């Protein structure tokens, strides 16, 4: 799959950017230069590549330090959504009517809720932690996974080749392993990539509203939100975190598109066609 994604230019770009982001997340806190605090709100200089923040901390180091939480945050959102969405999505097709009905109603509920309002409200009720905010957001975006999984599973479950397998005496487990998984995984991967993007935007919006912040732990969203308060001193300061967020979201979307493009029979054909054209 990855190899196929890499045959697309957009796919290479997306994977490249996300790799850098992942590296930032893993190494960021380690490589962040431990610059002592200095005069607050300096603009760019040799000592402080991106200037200093309102407490005189080096913005560049803060961005690096913040990478892990920022990335983990949206990955956590996506993972929560994945777990909460995929399993019921699969089971809604394979288990009985009662389960199907119940989960469908629950998903209808979640979809009906205005995202941020709910995230804000529930985080208020659950206490003001980044983790709470993430869990809530994850649950709120889980319908995407539920629907995607369910749709893919439904399509496969009613296909002739599954019927053919049943006629050969295959069990449900066999059918899922052999026929369903391969069809369900690509749309889940698409949803996962999309959700990481959505997660970034939502988590940063919540941070802007002051929800889910646990100072002094920096996040890109938090840095962006606080930079907006000092526009007069450092007008271009929000650019760095904003670009990081936007590029990451963009790369996630690109990746989602690339996965969509190369998955399934049509995707294979596309990739093959490109290979032929390249020769």
């Amino acid at each position: 799959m990855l190899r196929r994604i890499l045959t697309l230019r957009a796919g290479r770009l997306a994977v490249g950017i996300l790799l850098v982001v992942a590296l930032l997340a893993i190494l960021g806190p380690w490589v962040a230069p431990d610059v002592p605090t200095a005069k607050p709100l300096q603009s760019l200089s040799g000592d402080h590549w991106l200037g200093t923040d309102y407490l005189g901390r080096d913005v560049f180091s803060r961005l690096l330090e913040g990478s892990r939480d920022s990335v983990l945050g949206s990955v956590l959102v996506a993972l929560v959504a994945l777990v909460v969405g995929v399993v019921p999505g699969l089971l809604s097709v394979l288990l009985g009517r009662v389960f199907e009905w119940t989960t469908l109603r629950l998903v209808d509920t979640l979809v009906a809720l205005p995202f941020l309002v709910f995230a804000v409200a529930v985080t208020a009720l659950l206490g003001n932690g980044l983790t709470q905010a993430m869990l809530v957001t994850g649950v709120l975006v889980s319908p995407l996974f539920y629907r995607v999984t369910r749709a893919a599973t439904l399509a496969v479950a009613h296909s002739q080749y599954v019927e053919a397998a049943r006629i050969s005496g295959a069990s449900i487990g066999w059918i899922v392993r052999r026929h369903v998984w391969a069809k369900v995984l690509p749309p889940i991967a698409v949803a996962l990539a999309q959700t990481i993007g959505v997660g970034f935007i939502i988590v940063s919006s919540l941070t802007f509203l002051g929800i889910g912040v646990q100072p002094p732990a920096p996040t890109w969203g938090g840095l962006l939100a606080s930079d907006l308060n000092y526009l007069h001193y450092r007008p271009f300061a929000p650019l760095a975190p904003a670009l990081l967020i936007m590029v990451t979201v963009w790369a996630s979307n690109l990746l989602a598109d690339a996965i969509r493009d190369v998955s399934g029979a049509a995707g294979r054909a596309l990739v093959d066609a490109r290979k032929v054209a390249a020769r």
Partner: protein
Amino acid sequence: GNGSAASGDGTSTLRWATSYFPTHWDPVVSGSGAQFRELALVYASLTKTDENGNAVPDLAESWTYNDTGDQVTFHLRPKLTFSDGTPVNAAAVKAAIERAKTQKNSALFGDLTSIKSVTTSGDLDVVVQLTQTDYQIPLLFGERVLQVASPAADPTALDQKPVGAGPFVVTQLTPGTKVVLKKNPDYWDAANIHIENVELVSAPDAATVVSGLQTGVYNFADITPNNAEAAKAAGLDVFVQPGFNANNISINVNKAPFTNPKVVDAVRHAINRQEFVDKLGFGYGEATDQPFPKKYVAYDPQSADKYAYDPAKAKELLKGIPPIKLTLVIPSADPQAEIVQSQLAAVGITVDIKVDKNWATPFFAKDLTLSLYGTTGRDSAVQTLTAHFGPNGPLNLSSPYQPAGFEAAVAKVRQTPLEAADYASVLQAATRAGLESKALVFTYSSPNLLAKSKSVSALPANPGHIDWTGVKIG
């Protein structure tokens, strides 16, 4: 800048964006210090303060103490009415004081412990019997504690239909967000009120308040220090309304590790007050180790710099004590906490910051070990002192602990008439006694920073108050 976008209506309208929009419009119920400034648009008090913080007449023309100082009589101005037509008389004031003492959800009865009873004498004289000699009462019955509402109004309805005898009358009120007022022609000093209309709204994100002022959406707003430069650059008047603001680090000496006085002292010496000013003040505010500004009568020069910034000494004090880990609990994200964290880290104390929406519960139950608080102060210095240092003071995280000698010093102040020659020294002695408290480390006083469009004329510089007397718009 473009100031004309929304201010073309000619009449003098004050468009005020406030970050402290009152949650409740009944003065007895409303709890926070900053909101009284807004409530004062509607409600007048018995007294108010002048530029020096002295009590001067408001609804009461004058007042007289008996010889023992345990009874004070307020003489009301004649022929005043509330905006519902009810006369402002001694009965009304008596009712107001009693309501503040007895109403179930009153936030004030803690402030009124000196009041034994209230009687009327004739139509205009209110006689207040005290439980002790207390010459602070005229200061007490100012904006903070005795905004007088009409006795004819149903107290439960006051929140939505405030009826007072203040300079303005509410015409429309959207709870929590917006209130529209017009000038009260029956206000005793109406001749000096030149503003016709007021629209008070709850302020948006701090970053956009200045844009709002700049584009004329508002013409008056409180701003955060970081926005002061921008506001000036946008051609706005930026000024500081003097006040009694003081931020502190609250410490609970009943809990480890602060049961060890050395740790408390270490914290006292670890705090670099100037850093707060430098980083958060943007040229405004000043370092302080007392809950009073320097020029105020209660400020005790002798106590200045008692625990100066001395990290070496702090480290010295901590020697031999096992590593300390603390949780600093605050109600919302606050850079002060980050500064405290880094300063304590510098002397080897690890601090975790925990933002807890439910902060008030443990704080007022005195369950926290370490927290931050900022007071807006009170008109009566004694009140400020007891709130911080008294055994039951709400701001004393270490209740019932109080510093030795504090109780006596405060009693002495109460017994000293305000105009007595030694009033200042007695008061300062009480401050000195209070500052012995291990429960509080004062850091800096954040300024009451305001920005206004140039069309709004300067405000009287009454500390802690926003007084519209004489202010013109246009």
